[in-house]
C-alpha cells in the first residue's frame, strides 16, 4: 500500500526538506518503518527506543487519530494520507 505522509515543518529537514513523503506498508508500523528506512534521521522523532509511537507525536490516518485505530497496528490502504504533527502541550 502506498500512502502519502505529510510532515510537519520540524521534521522536514530530516526527510529531504519536502512537506510530503511517500511510504509503503499495510499497517502504520510498516509505513513508519519504511519511512525510517528512507530517512534514518527520522527514527528518534517517530518511535521510542522500544519501538512505540513517540508520545510527542500526533498521527492522523486521513481524518482519524491513530490512537483510536489501534496505534501502530492501524491498517492503512492505498491512497490513504498520514498526517504527522507535533503534540502541542505545556503548562
Amino acid at each position: 500500500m502506498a500512502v502519502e505522509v505529510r510532515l510537519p515543518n520540524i521534521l522536514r529537514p530530516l526527510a529531504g526538506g519536502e512537506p510530503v513523503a511517500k511510504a509503503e506498508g499495510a499497517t502504520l508500523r510498516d509505513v513508519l518503518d519504511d519511512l525510517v528506512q528512507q530517512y534514518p534521521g527520522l527514527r528518534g522523532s517517530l518511535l521510542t527506543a522500544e519501538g512505540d509511537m513517540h508520545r510527542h507525536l500526533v498521527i492522523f490516518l486521513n481524518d482519524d487519530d491513530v490512537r483510536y485505530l489501534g496505534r501502530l497496528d492501524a491498517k492503512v490502504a492505498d491512497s490513504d494520507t498520514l498526517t504527522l504533527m507535533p503534540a502541542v502541550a505545556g503548562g
Partner: protein
Amino acid sequence: MLVLPRSCWYRIVAHCLDWLPLEACGLLAGMVQPGQPARVDEVYPASNAERSARVYTVEPRDLLRADRAAEAAGLTVVGVWHSHTHTPAYPSPTDIAQAPDPDWHYLLVSLSDSEPVLRSYRIVAGEVTDEPVVLTP
C-alpha cells in the same frame, strides 16, 4: 517581533475567558515572509484536552483542523497561545520542555491580574527569549 491584529487579540482573550477556570489554548497562523516580522493573520481557538487549570494539550483534532484551515487560506501555523490563570505570562518549565517547534512563537496570556497580560516568546533548545508584540488595527 510579532505583529498581531487587534481582532485576533480580542478573540484570544475571549477564548481564554471562556475557558476559565481552566487553561485555554489555540494556534496562530500567518504568512511566513523571510526578512519580514512575523505576522499573525488568523487564530484558531482549540480545546484543552487536559481540561486543567495547570496544563494544556491542544486537542489533536483541533490541531489537524487548524493546520488544514491555515493551509487552505495560504497560511502556516506559526505558533501557539495558551493562558496562565494564576501565574505570570512567562513560560513554565513544562512549556519550555515541550515547546514543539523552534520556529514558532509562543504567546502567553496571564489572567492573574485585573486585566489580561500578553507576552510572546521564542523557545529554542530550552532557551527562552521574549519578543515585542505589536498590536495593529
